[in-house]
């Protein structure tokens, strides 16, 4: 296969495999936070802040995969 095809396949595979982990992580963070808020509605602001922070960390990993995919595609 020539480099152009490999490049396209590499781009698609990088982003497709790279977001599986963060997707599972964000799902679990969301579900645990909502059940924590359900158990203790008074602590909702604290839990929400912690949840948003944790989701940001998890999303950053998906963004790393996206950046590598973009680098492969555009250079």
């Amino acid at each position, binding site marked *: 296969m020539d480099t152009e095809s490999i490049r396209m396949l590499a781009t698609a595979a990088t982003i497709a495999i790279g977001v599986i982990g963060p997707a599972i992580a964000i799902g679990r963070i969301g579900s645990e936070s909502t059940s924590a808020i359900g158990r203790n509605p008074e602590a909702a*602001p*604290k839990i929400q*802040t912690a949840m*948003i*922070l944790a989701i*940001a960390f998890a*999303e*950053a990993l998906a*963004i*790393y995969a*996206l*950046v590598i995919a*973009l*680098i492969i595609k*555009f*250079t």
Partner: protein
Amino acid sequence: MSEISLRAEEIFRVGNYTVTNALLLSTLSLVALAALGLTLKRRLRMVPDMFQNVFETALDALLGLMDSVLGDRKKSERYLPLVATIFLFILFSNWLGLLPGVGSIVVHEGNRTVPLLRSPAADLNFTLALAIVAVLSINILGVAAIGAAKHAKKFFNFKNPIEFFVGILELISEFAKMVSFSFRLFGNVFAGEVLLTIMAFLVPYLVPLPFLFLELFVGMIQAFIFAMLTLVFIASAVTEHHG
């Protein structure tokens, strides 16, 4: 469809210094923020009008949020300028990058066409500079709060081998923070720009609307996350090691 380029394109040079389209828009964002600040300052009254009221409410909410992380109001007021500046600068840069004209107004550089304006955070230089400023400030504020010896002890801990290893990992994690801050913001904004360009190219009418809303939301969330993460790391840097 114009070329999608990973790096910000150069518009003109001043001597040996290249001015890129992202730099141009970030300067405009700076001017807008400065104008807003000066207007607010000139219209300050003891009995606030609506303009001042909006900013007082926002400031109160932000200080309350920082209180919940830092613990007391004095600390919040001390670290408010850094956190609020990071938030407002990134917010204005992201939102100004959504206006019509960004990416579509082009200049002709020799034989190629280059967009005149580009979202500032879609340039890795911008995000890397902010990330370095944030991480350096976190460490400097930590030293200013608890002293250089105690701050250094967090990284070079000779109590036992495990603590030593953890300290070295903490040191490496400071550099990982720089990378993670810059790439999180860059990835989000650049991907958003590419998405908007491709959507506008595929279906120019109506369909880009939900994506514009998404980018509005993402721009605000990323500014908030950058500022909040800086705040949380400052909070952990100015407290003594629990040990």
